[in-house]
């Protein structure tokens, strides 16, 4: 491997380099990556194909790739068997409230930590950082008891309120971003007599939009896919979010693979559609949260 493919744009020598070899190594890399991408996506494709088969088709060896006949009725049966629509509504409104509240409360705290020189700021910030180290299983039982005392068990408040009011990671990340905003932008406003509130709202928030978008995406995925909390707090199927409804659906139809696959598709497709539409923003948002974290 004496041939250095990375230097195309550096040395003029590359122009005379045998093009065939250059292309070959890139070509084989593409082949490997295409195979890899196929392996990554295959489970979803296989799930969709399986969801359209009948019980007689699904256990055929060797596997029958294309469902014949195509049984759309699996979807109708799944939707009738479990209140998926309701679960969607629950997941959706819970997640939206959590995301919006997190954006406001976390950016407020982040602004204070980055820009307001108040007593105890350092200690409190260190506390926020330290709590990121606490695995959620440690506070799981006490939180359950707290929810019990508050009368919030089996209500959505048990999911919404902690999600809306506590996100140390978001506070930390947004603070990092606010620290990166040049102070000159605020100084003119301060001269004009603007207070903290106005600076936060009219100067800081617009400038950290990319970070807010990243936090929104990250929080959305976390809240939408949260499994352990609703599993512990919720009992009534009508109050279930999508992940735990799917889990009880699974318990109901063990061995009825076509129906289980249809239920899984119902719960996954909307998220995947959102992902396909907004993939660039989602991936880049996640990259931001990873890099600053």
């Amino acid at each position: 491997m004496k041939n250095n493919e990375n230097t195309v744009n550096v040395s003029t020598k590359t122009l005379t380099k045998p093009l065939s070899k250059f292309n070959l190594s890139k070509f084989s890399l593409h082949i490997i990556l295409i195979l890899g991408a196929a392996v990554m996506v295959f489970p979803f494709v296989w799930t969709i194909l399986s969801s359209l088969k009948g019980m007689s088709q699904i256990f055929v060896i060797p596997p029958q790739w294309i469902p014949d006949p195509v049984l759309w009725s699996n979807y109708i049966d799944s939707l009738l068997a479990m209140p998926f629509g309701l679960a969607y509504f629950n997941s959706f409104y819970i997640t939206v409230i959590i995301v919006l509240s997190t954006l406001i409360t976390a950016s407020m705290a982040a602004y204070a930590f980055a820009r307001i020189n108040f007593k105890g700021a350092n200690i409190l910030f260190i506390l926020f950082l330290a709590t990121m180290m606490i695995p959620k299983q440690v506070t799981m039982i006490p939180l359950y008891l707290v929810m019990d005392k508050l009368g919030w068990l089996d209500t959505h408040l048990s999911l919404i309120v902690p999600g809306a009011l506590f996100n140390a990671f978001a506070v930390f990340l947004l603070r990092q971003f606010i620290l990166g905003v040049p102070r000159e932008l605020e100084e003119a406003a301060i001269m004009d007599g603007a207070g903290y509130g106005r600076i936060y709202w009219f100067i800081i928030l617009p400038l950290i939009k990319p970070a807010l978008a990243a936090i929104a995406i990250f929080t959305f995925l976390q809240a939408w896919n949260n499994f352990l909390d609703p599993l512990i707090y919720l009992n009534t199927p009508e109050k279930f979010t999508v992940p735990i409804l799917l889990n009880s659906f699974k318990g109901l139809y063990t061995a009825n693979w076509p129906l289980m696959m249809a239920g899984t598709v119902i719960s996954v497709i909307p998220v995947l559609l959102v992902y396909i539409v907004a993939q660039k923003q989602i991936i880049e948002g996640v990259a931001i949260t990873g890099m600053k974290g």
Partner: protein
Amino acid sequence: MDRSRPNLWGFLFISPQLIGLLFFSLIPLVYAFVLSFTDWNGFAESSFVGLANYIEQFKNPDFFTAIINTVYYMILVVPIGIAIAMILAISLNKITGKGIYRVFFFMPVVTSSVSVGIIFMWILNGDFGILNQALSLFGIDGPMWLTDTKWVIPSIALLSIWWGLGYNMVIFLAGLQGISKSYYEAASIDGANAFQKFRHITLPLLTPTTFFVTIMTIISSFQVFDQAFVMTQGGPAKASYTIVFHIYDQAFVDFTMGKSSAAAIILFFVILIFTLVQFKLQDRWVFYEK
């Protein structure tokens, strides 16, 4: 004119998150410590039992089963998952069409643990699963992945690697973007080959990212639960019973809240120590550009 009272405004701005921090993190943490020294079972009166819950954990065979399973899982997921993600990111970084590949590799990240769990239950089904059918084309008689005590942890690890690959890849890609092209140009002028560049430029300059990904993967591996809960319920014969499973079972199946809290506190310290050791060791291998 509110700038004259920074203390008031500072607290006002942090108050919503501060309330959250107190009620949903700090107070529960202290409460967990207190509970771990009691014999509370969720209903009756509780009494102080000292270190009995902790001693009980170390005598409990389930606790050790849980630790062994979790560590086994971690040994599989951390090195393999990180290596694949890093190689993938480095390959993607130098080719055209990176964006399209990224879409596919990242896709599983957005889906929930339950859905990917169910999907893998079907793929890994011993009798009719597509994986064993594919293996049989090569003359390999695939194991009963999820119902064989020897294969259940590797199966869950396989799922987790697939599920988390896109996330780690994206973090590595971002890390690679941060490496200045000028290093590679200088190395080319000195006649370095592709492997030398990888070994002496990419790998060392990527170590801060590798460090971050390693810490995050180790922490999440200690907390593995959803996949085992959905696919195997900790079985067969507790072969996929993890530490968090142990905490969950004691609290919400046996209602021995005190014991469960003790196990949770032990997990907390194990993660804390692991992370601190990682930070201590980082100056041996993590390279920060000045």
